[in-house]
């Protein structure tokens, strides 16, 4: 496997504009001869499909949901960062770049992050023009708020439903192209495999989730925008359908998988209430603008109702430990601090796995109506799930798997190690290093889809002869036969274990051994246990119904099959990365007061895994990361 990041030469602030100029272009009249497949219709996939179609390419899009509008970007609550400096508080492209590299704990690629900061302002312009109803001030100009890991206000938002409004914006642009016939949209279709022709990605095989039909699709390039893999943990803030089939099939066809162990555990989620639970619900990070996080100082007070615990008996642990960032400490740090407090026996609520997020001070200072205006829908969600009102008593929150910084490795052009296979949004690994800052996922998804891919994909297409690939080629027939055989196999085991029950087993191991804190012994244990679950899966799985019908058990089983392999890869990566960085916290590497210790001499690189076949340990490659413009430093938020 050759790892060449293809970072353009020149000063950091000029790389992107120089690169755009040196890229090959496709003449407008020739664009319609090229055919691009895009899998996924979230912020990245939806915006890419709309933009490429506007440019004149033929696009075919797929999503597993019943409409492209349902992709899980829709659930993002808090906001989207952009270096507009509308607040005149010292923000700039360079500061957003700096904050993102630092926030990622010096494990991201500088050139990509700078480009992200550069295009961030264009995203806000584009979305406002589409009619996205961003929050406004009384003068009619855009409002901002603060997010974790930043000391400026650069987050744009639409109440607590920013992801929804941005996604509906991208969906409207996509819908316009569907109406014009430039995008062919296939809903309720799941990509089950990737097709290579002479080493280049030239198509996919899908299953129609309504009829069960397995079908091949050919194109000149394939784009994966299939999101992250937090559902490897079973319980996460992801939608129940989010899965890693597309990225794992690409990995098994030769695409490098980078940093699979970098998973983000979000500090503010509603705690789990029992084994019946199918997902965890996030409470936006924006709540930490006004909410104060605390636990009782004394474990003996944990059973008392919060209002009976006097001020002096409370430990506002984030404010105490990180005075300059306080409650807005970055996510990895805030999550670990909450875990630490609960590990000390000072957690609250059921199972004592929770901490308070208290709005009493803010309500007293600003009034209930101001808080309702800012967070009303979040308070409603909280009340619906828990039955409690956060206006009357503090919320109880606990960290939960939320976002995966790891993903398929891509070069500066967002192309994977397979030529012709491009990966955008959460599905790639590129911009967030070992920890993503709040409000940066929406920024990256839209940056990739609206502004980056449409400027890099043509460079690949320009070197390809259009329209020579068709599904009659042997390569397609072979992959289709493999997919049919795989589906048959899942249906024929006829054992006793349901896909959900096996997924629950996998999730427990991953959360305990490869979750917020990891250690060598635990990871080795996970690497023993995961193959046992996989063995149980292939020996004792039970899927009822048939292949040629709408069969949700079959869908679940197929998704779990890939999660089992991915979970193992995550543990290999976590074990071999013998340092702590960002969301990857190895207990062996911490300071006396529990802060992460990075080992830059040995690990200032991205780890890229190459598939070696079922049951074989994959090969670990590295991409060395240079920090020229943001010098390596110990990340401190104190």
């Amino acid at each position: 496997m050759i790892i060449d990041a293809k970072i353009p030469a020149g000063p950091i602030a000029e790389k992107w504009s120089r690169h755009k100029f040196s890229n090959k272009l496709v003449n407008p009249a020739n664009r319609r001869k090229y055919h691009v497949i895009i899998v996924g219709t979230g912020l990245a996939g939806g915006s890419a499909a709309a933009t490429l179609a506007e440019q004149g390419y033929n696009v075919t899009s797929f999503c597993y949901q019943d409409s492209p509008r349902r992709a899980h970007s829709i659930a993002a609550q808090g906001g989207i960062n952009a270096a507009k400096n509308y607040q005149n508080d010292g923000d700039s492209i360079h500061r957003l770049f700096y904050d993102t590299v630092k926030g990622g704990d010096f494990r991201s690629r500088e050139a990509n992050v700078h480009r992200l900061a550069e295009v961030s302002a264009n995203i806000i312009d584009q979305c406002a023009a589409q009619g996205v109803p961003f929050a406004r001030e009384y003068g009619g100009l855009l409002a901002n708020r603060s997010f974790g890991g930043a000391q400026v206000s650069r987050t744009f938002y639409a109440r607590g439903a920013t992801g929804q409004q941005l996604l509906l914006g991208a969906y409207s642009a996509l819908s316009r192209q569907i109406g014009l016939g430039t995008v062919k949209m296939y809903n309720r279709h799941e990509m089950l495999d990737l097709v290579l022709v002479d080493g280049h990605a030239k198509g996919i095989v899908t299953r129609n989730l309504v009829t069960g039909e397995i079908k091949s699709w050919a194109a000149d390039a394939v784009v994966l925008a299939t999101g992250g893999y937090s559902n490897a943990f079973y319980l996460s803030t992801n939608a129940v359908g989010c899965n890693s089939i597309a990225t794992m099939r690409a990995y098994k066809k030769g695409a490098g998988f980078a940093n699979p162990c970098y998973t983000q555990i979000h500090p503010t989620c509603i705690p789990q209430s029992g084994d019946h639970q199918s997902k965890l619900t996030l409470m936006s990070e924006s709540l930490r603008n006004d909410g104060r996080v605390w636990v009782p100082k004394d474990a003996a007070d944990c059973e008392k109702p919060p209002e009976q615990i006097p001020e002096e008996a409370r430990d506002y642990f984030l404010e105490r430990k990180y005075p300059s960032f306080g409650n807005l400490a970055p996510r990895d740090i805030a999550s670990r601090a909450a875990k630490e407090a609960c590990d000390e026996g000072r957690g609250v609520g059921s199972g004592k796995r929770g901490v308070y997020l208290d709005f009493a001070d803010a309500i007293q200072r600003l009034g209930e109506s101001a808080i309702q205006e800012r967070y009303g829908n979040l308070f409603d969600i909280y009340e619906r799930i828990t039955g409690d009102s956060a206006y009357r008593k503090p919320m109880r929150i606990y960290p939960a798997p939320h976002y995966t910084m790891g993903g398929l490795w891509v070069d500066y052009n967002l192309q994977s190690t397979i030529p012709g296979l491009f990966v955008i949004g959460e599905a790639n690994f590129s911009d967030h290093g070992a920890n993503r800052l709040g409000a940066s996922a929406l920024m990256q998804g839209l940056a990739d889809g609206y502004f980056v891919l449409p400027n890099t994909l043509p460079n690949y297409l320009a070197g390809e002869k259009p329209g020579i690939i068709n599904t009659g080629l042997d390569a397609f027939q072979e992959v289709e036969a493999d997919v049919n055989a795989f589906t048959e196999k899942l249906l024929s085991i006829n054992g006793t274990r349901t896909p959900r029950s096996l997924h629950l087993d996998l999730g427990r191991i991953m959360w305990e051994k490869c979750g917020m804190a990891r250690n060598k012994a635990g990871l080795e244990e996970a690497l023993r246990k995961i193959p046992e679950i996989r063995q149980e899966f292939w020996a004792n799985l039970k899927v009822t119904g048939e292949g040629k019908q709408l069969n949700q058990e079959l869908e679940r089983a197929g998704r779990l099959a890939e999660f089992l392999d991915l979970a193992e890869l995550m543990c290999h990566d976590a074990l071999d990365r013998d340092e702590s960085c960002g969301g990857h916290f190895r207990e062996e590497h911490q300071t006396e007061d529990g802060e992460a210790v990075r080992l830059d001499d040995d690990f200032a690189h991205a780890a890229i895994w190459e598939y070696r076949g079922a049951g074989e340990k994959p090969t670990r490659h590295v991409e060395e990361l240079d920090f020229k413009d943001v010098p390596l430093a110990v990340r401190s938020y104190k």
Partner: protein
Amino acid sequence: MNLKLKIWRQDTSDGSGQFKHYEINNVSPDSSFLEMLDMLNEQLVESGDQSVAFDSDCREGVCGMCSLTINGIPHGGHQGTTTCQLHMRSFSDGQTITIEPFRAKSFPVLRDLVVDRGGFDEIIQAGGFITCRTGSAQDANEIPIPKPLADDAFDFAACIGCGACVAACKNASAMLFTGAKIAHLNSLPQGKAEKDRRTLSMVSKMDEAGFGNCRNYGECSAVCPKEIPLDVIAKMNRDFAVASVKGFISK
């Protein structure tokens, strides 16, 4: 909690269906309605039966994928709540719960409780957008939008496209859905250029897709999980009338 369930089962879109009765015990009152169905499905699969097919994805009330008519009411009849956010503490021990798909001619059943809401996508494709080529936008602060207007636009844009409005309406009208998108885009300065075209095109697609007309029953707004106000239909009718008259005069 122990419950009796009466669930609509249907194998294919062209076949007929029927209610089947199930019993489910030891349901946690803290579980969501869909988690209760997950539990039932585990039991069904373990005993060799096929699970009950139903749509859901985000399970936090915003993607709009979940549906279900529960005891005759789309999303179960709790104000501002989708089925996925409905919790079992809202039901009582021993209760019989009837679960059906969203019923409407334009939402054909695909299997069990899963319906095809593709008509909604077609309405948006007809005009539910502001044409602005990527990269062509001016600075976002160049168009000031008064806060009350921005707030209203957000309220209209909050629609999740779940289809409860259609399922609740005797006429299976999609006017709340269509009106919400038209009100969102037509009210903003960015959306003015295409206002007439958008309104005529979306309304005509709505009719073509087989959705019925509004008779002001108001059931749509009552079941809407995002509480889209009935006013959007009046706004749409006004914009439609203006656009039609303009079209007539210019002929």
